[in-house]
């Protein structure tokens, strides 16, 4: 009885019918996701459709699953593919192309899963002559509390946005006070109090907070917009509270305050990734075609300053020609005016996987179709 049941399950999982259904489902998924990009932007679509097990659709307040997501379809395809090959395994060269192509496909699916989980994107904005040893996240923010007493050196404690959102109280050995989140909005606009007469009284008691109002905004997923989260944090020392600050990505400059004989700064800023070396933008250049505003090329000459203090090495980053260094890749992403380059910084340990898997699939398909073609030509001659 149970074996019969198992056999049925097996025959479903090894069947080409399931393959066809899954391919059809993925076509619809990709199509739907493409249309939805107009509203959600690329990043939002990836979260909703591809990096998910189920696609949820809002129905009023309710969010109900309406369609299998990328992980589910991809996972089932993987199971289908592997079990079919295990079940029907027959040695012989007649199916060799299919074997190679499917092995490549498995690798490709796993590689995409890995890069979806591991890839991190940052940006680096450099003016000519400027040196930086960090890149900034384009999407995530952090609360930085800086001990700025020493003019030559900043001691930074960075608290990820997610801890503020979750209301987690942070106590860190480097800080003589606790950080107590009192409220968080994922996207907001900061207005002067005078411009927002109806705003509720601010919970902030120190710094800029009491003078401004926080207007919550819808979370945006658009490519060219950025969420500006705001939070109220209370700093509590051993002798009681220091006050409540408003911190917001919309505020810009850090707010300063003295405590315990040291001077401190507090700021919400794009999450930084520090690296053990720094980059200096030596020269940025960009050309347009004469008589038009079509960009012809842009390039950044940067110097890599290694931590050993050596003379550094100069490289030219330009379109289609990134710099790969220390597990990071720097791309010429854009520019701002004539003297500021914007570099895209990507960390993706699995970047090589698609190259290998695509080569395998292409080879497999070519081999298999050649086998078909030869057979076909023989058949015609006979």
């Amino acid at each position, binding site marked *: 009885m149970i074996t019969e049941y198992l056999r049925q399950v097996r025959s479903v999982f090894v069947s080409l019918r399931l393959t066809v259904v899954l391919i059809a489902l993925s076509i619809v998924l*990709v199509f739907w996701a493409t249309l939805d990009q107009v509203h959600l932007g690329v990043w939002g679509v990836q979260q909703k459709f591809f990096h998910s097990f189920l696609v949820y659709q809002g129905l009023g307040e309710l969010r109900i699953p309406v369609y299998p997501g990328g992980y589910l379809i991809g996972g089932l395809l993987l199971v289908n593919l592997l079990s079919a090959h295990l079940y029907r395994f027959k040695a012989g060269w007649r199916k060799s192309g299919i074997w190679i192509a499917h092995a490549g496909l498995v690798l490709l699916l796993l590689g995409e899963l890995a890069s979806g989980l591991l890839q991190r994107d940052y940006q680096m904005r450099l003016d000519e002559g400027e040196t930086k040893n960090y890149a900034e996240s384009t999407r995530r923010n952090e609360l930085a509390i800086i001990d700025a007493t020493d003019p030559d050196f900043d001691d930074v404690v960075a608290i990820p946005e997610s801890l503020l959102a979750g209301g987690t109280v942070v106590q860190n050995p480097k800080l003589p006070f606790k950080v107590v989140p009192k409220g968080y909005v994922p996207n907001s606009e900061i207005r002067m109090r005078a411009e927002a007469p109806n705003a509720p009284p601010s919970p902030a008691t120190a710094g800029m907070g009491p003078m401004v109002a926080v207007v919550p905004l819808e979370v945006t997923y658009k490519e060219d917009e950025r969420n500006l989260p705001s939070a109220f944090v209370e700093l509590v020392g051993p002798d009681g509270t220091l006050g409540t600050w408003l911190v917001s990505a919309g505020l810009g400059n850090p707010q300063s305050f003295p405590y315990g004989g040291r001077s401190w700064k507090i700021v919400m800023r794009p999450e930084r990734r520090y690296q053990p070396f720094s980059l200096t933008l030596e020269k940025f250049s960009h050309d347009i075609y004469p008589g038009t505003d079509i960009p*012809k090329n842009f390039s950044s000459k940067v110097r890599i300053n290694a931590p050993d203090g050596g003379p550094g090495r100069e490289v030219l980053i330009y379109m289609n020609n990134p710099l790969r260094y220390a597990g990071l890749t720097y791309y010429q992403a854009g520019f701002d005016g004539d003297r500021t380059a914007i570099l895209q910084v990507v960390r993706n340990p699995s970047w090589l996987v*698609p190259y290998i898997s695509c080569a395998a699939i292409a080879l497999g*398909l*070519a081999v298999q*179709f050649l086998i078909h073609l030869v057979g076909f030509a023989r058949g015609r001659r006979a």
Partner: protein
Amino acid sequence: MTRRMPLFVVLIAAVCALAGLFPQPGGPPPAVTAFGRLPVLSEGRMKPLDSVARSTLLVIQGRQRVMTPDDRELTPDEWLLDVLFFPERADTYRVFVVDNTDLLSLIGKNDENLRIRYEKTSEQVAAMIGILSSSQRRMSFNEIAPYLSQIEAQEKLAEPVLPQSRTRFQAAVVQLYGNLAHYLRLRRALVPEGSKDFLGELLRLREGLSDGVAAVRAKEAGKPHDEAKAAALIAEGQKFVAMAESTDLLAIPPDDDDAEPGAWHSAGHALLETFGKGDVNAAVLAYAGMGYAWRQNELASFGHIVRLYGTSLERRFDRQVRKTRIETIFNQAEPFYACMMIYLAAFLFAALSWLKWPEAARRSALGLVALGWALATAGIATRMWLEGRPPVTNLYSSALFIGWGSVGLCLILEATHRNAIGSAAAGMIGFATLLIAHHLALAGDTLEMMRAVLDSNFWLATHVVVVVTGYASTFLAGMLAVIYVLRGVFTRTLDRASADALGRMIYGIVCFATLFSFVGTALGGIWADQSWGRFWGWDPKENGALIIVLWNALILHARWGGLIRQRGLVCLAIFGNIVTSWSWFGTNMLGIGLHSYGFTQAAFWWLAGFIVLQLALIAVANLPLGKWRSFRA
């Protein structure tokens, strides 16, 4: 008689196609053609004035032919000459297309004053049944000029709206405003606004230049001076500033001692240097001389000046001048237009071969396809040489290349199967893709410069060519399937053997399409990884390509799993047409993403119509076999 048919047919077609290379009797005078060959720098590249004229006309009025109010037909070069040098005349030519009814009412037009009144009864009948147009859709500048301020005001309102969310009226007003600006930039390129004898003005300027400059210097130094002379010179200078600011046509070559050898100037810019250099720029004078002769209708001296100026350029810009000459010949020969007609004829002959003269008509069709393909190859090769680029650089060239690739595959099919199916499919796809290309050319210069992001010949040559070949083969499989349905349902010509042969062809082409669309898509991913740091970004165009790969994979798996047979294969292959056309154009219509370089709103309805047609064909294919004329017992 039918034995010689293929030879005759191909010869006649070849003669017709090649005739475009030579000057036609009754065509424009040689001086005008020579003028069209003069090189200028426009939209970032060196091109002949002939190309400027043609692409401008395509943009503003959707065709290259211009009719004067007294019903003479002008070549693009003649039209450009009038715009540049005889604007009073050019302003009367109806070259601005206005279709939107709201926009028409804005410029004071309604059904009544737009109706074309024909004299002859035959013409009236023809207009009634729609062969001749019954109402005017092209306006002259003079007709629009009184409403310029209203148009500008409406454009200011509509311009900030994103292109994909504009209403039809908004889109139309933005477009008309752009076209008017385009026209005015040309009108002010070589001659200042309102000047009727620019040559005389320049000669007088040259004569009094040293006195005038001395007067201005003295005036600036606060010394006694001739006020009239100083004021006259300053007025000239202001006129030149206005000229320099109001055009983007860089027609004046750099001086021999110019720091940048590629730095061409506008006429106004070159004229502003007059005061420093102490002489009027020779090229500006040459153009002013051409203008004078053209206005006086002295063709002999016009031709003389064009020749002199052309020769002086040839000595200095040998390579560019050669390129612009070839480009002019290429423009005038219109190889893709000839090609389109040949493909259409090939399709008709192929269809004829199933009804009558199976051998003669089949070989005629094959000959025509081969001729058309050779022409298309020459045309694409010429474009590649002119541009110094791989074949596909924009949506227009992708249409050319999809046609070229599919027809090439068809030639192979026809060579191996000899049943006219390859020729019929070639005729259909070749004609359709060139028709699409023709409409895409309405967006402007088709040899436009590449944006920095796309500026990589290696990736253009690999990713783009391979992925477009994938599109081409998916379309081909779809077209073969269409032929299967049409022949099977509506004629008695699809016997069992032909049906099986067609089925095998479709299957083989789907395999080929799977391979090419996959490799092309993967190469695109690698390019993206090289230049943006991600292999896959779910960009609409990437998704479109992925869907084609998935669709082909679905067909193959369904076939291997025995879920479909011949008719199922045919239906899925026809649906492949929808998938491919969506990926090719539909993704661009979303107006988002890195690949949205070819936003095409007007194409939406064509795409919708095409999809409906394919769905209808699939429905027809699902008729019970008893209804298929070929399979009825």
